[in-house]
């Protein structure tokens, strides 16, 4: 395995930095399926309540 030259290392570092800057925190919603009556709510903003009436 060869060691990158200083120029190559600089390019690698720049690429890593650029990709890290694009990283977003993972906030996938959690789907909560509710059937039936009443109102159900969640305190956690990640939890998305879906009332199914079918």
């Amino acid at each position, binding site marked *: 395995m060869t060691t990158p030259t200083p120029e190559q290392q600089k390019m690698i570092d720049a690429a890593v930095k650029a990709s890290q800057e694009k990283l977003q925190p993972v906030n996938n919603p*959690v*789907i*909560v*399926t*509710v*059937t*039936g*009556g*009443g*109102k*159900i*709510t*969640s*305190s*956690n903003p*990640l*939890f998305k309540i879906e009332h199914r009436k079918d």
Partner: protein
Amino acid sequence: MSLPVLVEYILAQEKSGGEPLTTLSGAAVYIQNFPASTTSNFILKPDDGEYAFFLYRALWDYANIPQAFSVHIQHRGVRTFDGTIHEVVSNFGLDGFLVVTEAEQFFSQVTNRTNVAQRISFGFNWLTARTREDASLVQEAIKRYGGR
């Protein structure tokens, strides 16, 4: 006191016009991927046009992973259930109705204790009283029957 028998008794009660005093209702909640090491509160309350729920059963799906979830249930500031789910649980030890209204909502706190996302499902059964007067009549019927 057998609660289901009391439920049937209340369901058979009619208002002066012959309308049923209550209707049987319930809800089921299903979460495919409850995130790891996460807690969420769930609040249940009557829908628009309903005054009170007389909740008599809360239960877990048999397919929930044993020991994966801890649950804390509180109503009117009183802890009614606190524990880890390890088997099919129904009623949570309820030996009477929990009266759930807009002002006194049913509070539950669910925690996934494991480090992987888990499925969970649970449900509730209750009798719905549409008005405050209906709810008073239900409470009278419960007392008449000797329940609470």
